[in-house]
């Protein structure tokens, strides 16, 4: 994840409290989703940014996962996301995301 964004995630989590924060990702494939999800839960796996060694344990989902998708207004989702959803490998993304959540999410 972008180093500047890591800093924003860290600062906002401190400001609002980790139990109140949910991260939503829009990455294009499973591996990138997994790396971003790991960054906001276990810490930056690339050891490059402000979240290196910082385990925030945040709740994190990809926007196309069923658990969050069912909470969106279906019209908004259709208009904003469904076109891209068709070209993404959602099963692969969901599998990565679920594995990270089971291992590292604390809330």
């Amino acid at each position: 994840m972008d180093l500047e964004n890591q800093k924003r995630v860290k600062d906002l989590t401190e400001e609002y409290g980790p139990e109140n924060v949910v991260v939503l990702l829009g990455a294009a494939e499973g591996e990138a989703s997994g790396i971003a999800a790991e960054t906001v839960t276990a810490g930056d796996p690339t050891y490059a940014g402000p979240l290196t060694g910082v385990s925030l344990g945040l709740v994190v989902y990809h926007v196309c996962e069923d658990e969050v998708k069912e909470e969106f207004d279906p019209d908004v989702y259709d208009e904003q996301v469904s076109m891209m959803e068709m070209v993404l490998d959602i099963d692969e993304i969901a599998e990565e995301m679920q594995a990270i959540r089971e291992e590292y999410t604390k809330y």
Partner: protein
Amino acid sequence: MSILDGKKVIVIGDRDGIPGPAIALCAESAGAEVIFSATECFV
């Protein structure tokens, strides 16, 4: 239990996937407050 309703949401979109503003609109439609939205680019 709702995942998003009443929560503070951080959006990390992707230029090659789903961009930040699109995710932010979805999150707001679920009753969440978007506190940060970015669109990353891996190129």
